């Protein structure tokens, strides 16, 4: 349910460059085979054609190819564009001069909730099998906690990399890169900076050949440049619309629309819907302190899903006030006109009595009130199966 801003490889590398983290020479983005050919021809050297999608396993899916010349780049781009990689359609490819690789390593810095700070992970066995290496030979994958009040200096970085078995001819460059990676990670309010693989080229340079970057969505207020990169996300159209409206929405497979306040309560609501024999159509958390307008937008969103046959609205007021919720519901119904679905509403907590009164006074035939979460779920499931 998190809405982290994930950067595509080319965006992550652009960020790396601005942070002084050594990476590949700047490439070009192509959205057609012809463009890919032109870009490759301009470089005049062998290039990589790399699918730009926000998912792993690109290489295994055939989304990353080495090309000796422009004609080959055209042919490979033709194959890669439009490819489906774990449900993500490739709409653009990165064309960049190919690096000659001598060795592949793994390096990352991440936010880690169990260590209440950051972790650095380093291994000399980089590449797509890194998780397998970690399972079978965990001693090959070094994990070190970093105290945010202390940070990471080059001596500590060198120590971590020595422990991971980095070769002498790579360690100074890699330690410098790791310090920059760590500092950039902190400066960008990132939750993940992952370089897999980190490579030593045949010329002996250590560079980031790939980038995986996730930014903390709560910190975007101080990173306008990074926030802009997260826009134009692809995905379920309703999820995109929800994101634009600042709502936490996830589309699910069933027919009972679910709307509540607080992620925990909404998850519990999904649980009781399935325990009542139904299937939730979505997860929607209106958040804390939702006002009438947010409530209206949320309900309109849930109802615009054609699969929804009934809606369960489960509100336990704390910071959210039930009278605001009731007003928002009526506002939404006013705007939407006649709707075929019934809304089963359960209100408790702050100003619940006032909210209930507002709904009683409105006497809207689409609204059915329920006493408890379990009885509301039962009623909503029943209505969905009859609809």
């Amino acid at each position: 349910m998190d809405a982290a801003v994930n950067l595509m490889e080319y965006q992550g590398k652009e960020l790396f460059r601005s942070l002084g983290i050594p990476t590949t020479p700047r490439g070009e983005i192509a959205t057609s085979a012809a463009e890919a050919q032109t870009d490759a021809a301009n470089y005049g050297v062998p290039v990589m054609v790399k699918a730009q999608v926000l998912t792993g396993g690109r290489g295994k899916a055939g989304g990353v190819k080495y090309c000796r010349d422009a004609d080959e780049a055209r042919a490979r781009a033709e194959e890669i564009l439009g490819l489906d990689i774990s449900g993500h359609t490739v709409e653009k490819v990165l064309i960049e001069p190919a690096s000659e690789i001598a060795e592949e390593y793994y390096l990352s810095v991440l936010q880690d909730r169990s260590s209440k700070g950051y972790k650095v992970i380093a291994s000399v066995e980089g590449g797509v099998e890194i998780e397998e290496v970690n399972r079978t030979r965990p001693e090959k994958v070094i994990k070190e906690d970093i105290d945010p009040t202390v940070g990471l200096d080059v001596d500590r970085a060198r120590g971590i990399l020595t422990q991971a078995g980095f070769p002498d001819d790579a360690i100074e460059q890699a330690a410098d890169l790791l310090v920059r990676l760590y500092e950039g990670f902190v400066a960008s309010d990132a939750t993940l900076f992952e370089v897999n693989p980190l490579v030593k080229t045949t010329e002996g340079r250590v560079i980031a050949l790939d980038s995986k970057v996730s930014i903390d969505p709560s910190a975007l207020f101080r990173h306008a440049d990074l926030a802009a990169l997260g826009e134009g996300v692809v995905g379920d159209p309703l999820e995109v619309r929800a994101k634009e409206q600042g709502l936490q929405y996830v589309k699910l497979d069933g027919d009972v629309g679910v709307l509540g306040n607080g992620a925990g309560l909404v998850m519990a609501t999904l649980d009781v819907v399935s325990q009542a024999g139904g299937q939730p159509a979505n997860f929607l958390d209106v958040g804390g302190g939702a006002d009438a307008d947010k409530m209206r937008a949320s309900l309109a969103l849930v109802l615009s899903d054609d699969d929804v046959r009934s809606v369960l609205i489960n509100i336990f007021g704390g910071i959210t006030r039930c009278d605001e919720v009731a007003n928002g519901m009526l506002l939404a119904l006013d705007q939407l006109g006649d709707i075929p679905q019934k809304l089963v509403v359960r209100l408790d907590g702050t100003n619940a009595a006032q909210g209930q009164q507002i709904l009683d006074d409105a006497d809207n035939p689409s609204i059915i009130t329920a006493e408890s979460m379990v009885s509301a779920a039962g009623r909503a499931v029943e209505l969905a199966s009859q609809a």
Partner: protein
Amino acid sequence: MSILIDSNTRVLVQGIGNQGTFHAKRNADYGTTIVAGVHPKRGGEIWEELDRPIYSSASEAVEHEDVNTSMILVPAPFAKDAIMEAFDAGIELIVCLTEGIPVHDMALVYNTFYPRAADGSFTKKGRPVLIGPNCPGVISPGKANVGFIPEESTRPGTVGLVSRSGTLTYQLMHELNEAGVGISTCVGIGGDPIIGSDFLDIIPRFADDPDTEAIVFVGEIGGTEEQRVGRWIHEHIPDTPVAAYVAGFTAPPGKQMGHAGAIVKEGGDGGETAADKKEALTELGIAVGMNPSETAQLIIQRLG
């Protein structure tokens, strides 16, 4: 008794806008002692709705007033500074309700509050208690309420309740209340990746509280903290009635970027789904409900 807050609690409120004032007023009407408010530009004025003084900083407030608790509701971009201000003023209990604080800010706050010992563990002893952020607060029914928790949903009693989720906490309190069962203290610890107090900072306090006879804890999918809680309970308080609920039996799987998350999870604590956690807790002899109602019933049965 109760834990963390009681009738001796004296609250400073940092963040006295509409929300802060609305909830501080509710807390005061419940009988909680609200001592003063803090606003950087309104020091020296009177906080009219509460009829209390306003100071321009937490340090200034503690110079003039007897305060042992701070309730923070300032907007997220300023929350780190507000928490550190309360820390620097030496306030013992800091309850931060603010939602949406950047994780890097909380990483710095946590490591400043609780410095790492040589063995990597965090020093909690003799340090102030931080609850939250992104939490509903703490209530000891009949004594004090610091935060958003709707007090009409509960009554004084002997069940200690601790939860990550705000609204789910209310739901549990409400279910218990309907059955006539009250609460010694309810603590909403918050759902953010880095929170000041985890389950294992709260549950031992309940274990030591003579007026808490039973414990309910409400977890969520993600992380493996619930399993550690289960082991602690199994080892230290096997005879105390405990019930748990882990929300999200039907939650969609989250999406994961990169390999790093998977690598650090190889810790042997077991899975992160609700079903995994239920299984692990059940094996440790802890009753786990499939929904809030069932969980309330489980603890009521155990109370006899």
